[in-house]
């Protein structure tokens, strides 16, 4: 059995699943629009939480937040279910498929057989859509992949019940009810406001302040933990910023695309200018990643290079601060 489902590739899995599920329900929503309305742009620094032997950095909010905010803003009813029994998780999935409803799943990446080896680590908040089942094989639309793919019952069971941080516990979701009319204008404004407030939040671990904190730490790391570990930490920063899913520049380009689209929808030319500025900020993030990679390729170990990286990140933070203050006034 196969549901007629249109697979469209996206940069980020969560936006992509929402965008594809909405399309299936007859509402065309682009990935950037989902991302912006769901207030997906973010920065968080969790120095005490070690991921892959380095501190936690993230350029996005907690998995699921974008989806929840997006659905709430537009009045879409989404049903979420988690399971303690694997058999039950499968039977509920099969039943929904029989009813012709495409189902979103939260899965672990480590056992996703179609991913390249380098991408297979214990990250449990990937999203994909199941849109059918043929001879014990599930038909999978993974938004970061170019085409659809399949997983066996056993393979799917394994990724749905991956363990560790953010364990999915079979988490599935589907759109229960979609409204007939959408107020995108209000949703966009609310989304932008939320992002501005997040990025300018007066707390040390999120937004601009978190970037500044990381910038200060980059200076200290070489002395405190040695060059090797420092480079590994910086590598983690690149991976989080540029890894499959961010669309480049730590989501800055997707956000710029969102501002461009919003400028059309809201008929607000200011937002088009903000979009261009955001593109330049994204370019600067790319440049920052490039500079990091040069540091650990040369293995120069001079203290000076870390000072420079630190300054670059600090000035990026200053630039974004100015940016979000302006953006807030445009709405």
């Amino acid at each position: 059995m196969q549901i007629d489902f249109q697979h469209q590739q996206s940069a980020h899995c969560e936006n992509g699943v929402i965008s594809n599920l909405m399309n299936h329900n007859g509402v065309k929503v682009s990935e950037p629009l989902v991302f912006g309305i769901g207030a997906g742009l973010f920065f968080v620094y969790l120095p005490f939480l070690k991921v892959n032997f380095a501190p936690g950095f993230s350029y996005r909010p907690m998995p699921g937040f974008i989806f929840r905010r997006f659905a709430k803003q537009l009045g879409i009813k989404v049903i979420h279910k988690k399971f303690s029994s694997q058999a039950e998780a499968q039977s509920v999935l099969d039943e929904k498929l029989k009813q012709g409803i495409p189902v979103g799943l939260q899965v672990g990446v480590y056992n996703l057989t179609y991913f390249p080896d380098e991408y297979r680590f214990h990250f449990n908040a990937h999203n994909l859509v199941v849109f059918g089942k043929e001879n014990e094989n599930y038909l999978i639309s993974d938004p970061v992949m170019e085409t659809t793919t399949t997983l066996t019952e056993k393979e799917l069971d394994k990724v749905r019940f991956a363990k560790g941080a953010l364990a999915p516990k079979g988490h599935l979701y589907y759109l229960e009810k979609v409204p007939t009319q959408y107020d995108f204008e209000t949703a966009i404004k609310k989304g932008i406001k939320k992002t501005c407030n997040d990025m300018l939040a007066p707390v040390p671990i999120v937004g601009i302040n978190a970037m500044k904190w990381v910038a200060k730490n980059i200076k200290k790391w070489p002395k405190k933990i040695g060059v090797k570990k420092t480079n590994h930490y910086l590598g983690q920063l690149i991976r989080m910023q540029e890894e499959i899913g961010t669309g480049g520049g730590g989501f800055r380009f997707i956000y710029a695309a969102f501002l461009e689209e919003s400028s059309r929808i809201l008929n607000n030319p200011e937002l088009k200018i903000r979009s261009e500025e955001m593109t330049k900020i994204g370019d600067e993030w790319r440049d920052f990643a490039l500079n990091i990679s040069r540091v650990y390729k040369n293995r120069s170990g001079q203290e000076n290079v870390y000072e420079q990286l630190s300054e670059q990140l600090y000035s990026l933070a200053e630039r974004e601060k100015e940016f979000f203050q302006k953006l807030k006034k445009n709405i």
Partner: protein
Amino acid sequence: MKKEQVPQDNSGLAKKNIHELCYAVDESGNYTTVQSSGWEVKASALDESMQLIEERVEETKKEILAGNLSPIAYFMELHRMDLAILSSYVGIHRFFVKRHFNPKRFQKLSDKTLKKYADVFEISIEELKNFKPN
């Protein structure tokens, strides 16, 4: 980033013939999406991370040969896990998992406990028990 600036470097993605989607600006200054085969900067960050894993695996092998660690530690590193992840997969508290790294305690483990580990690592109890690093 302009459309023509989207990097098309060799990477792990390219090897599996996967392209990722990037957002970039076209000639008329509007956003569009472009597929990318990868970016060297990212590829080197991934390489660094893979190297670290390999180093840890090799290090663990040495420790096992020296009689300081049990095979469980090796398979944990091989599967890119840490103590917390392994502990939640086998359903044994991390305090005990850590104790099972001790070769002497490992020798005394019941088949029932060994099976829990073997299942997670997808090997047989024999393979786990008789693991010899080379």
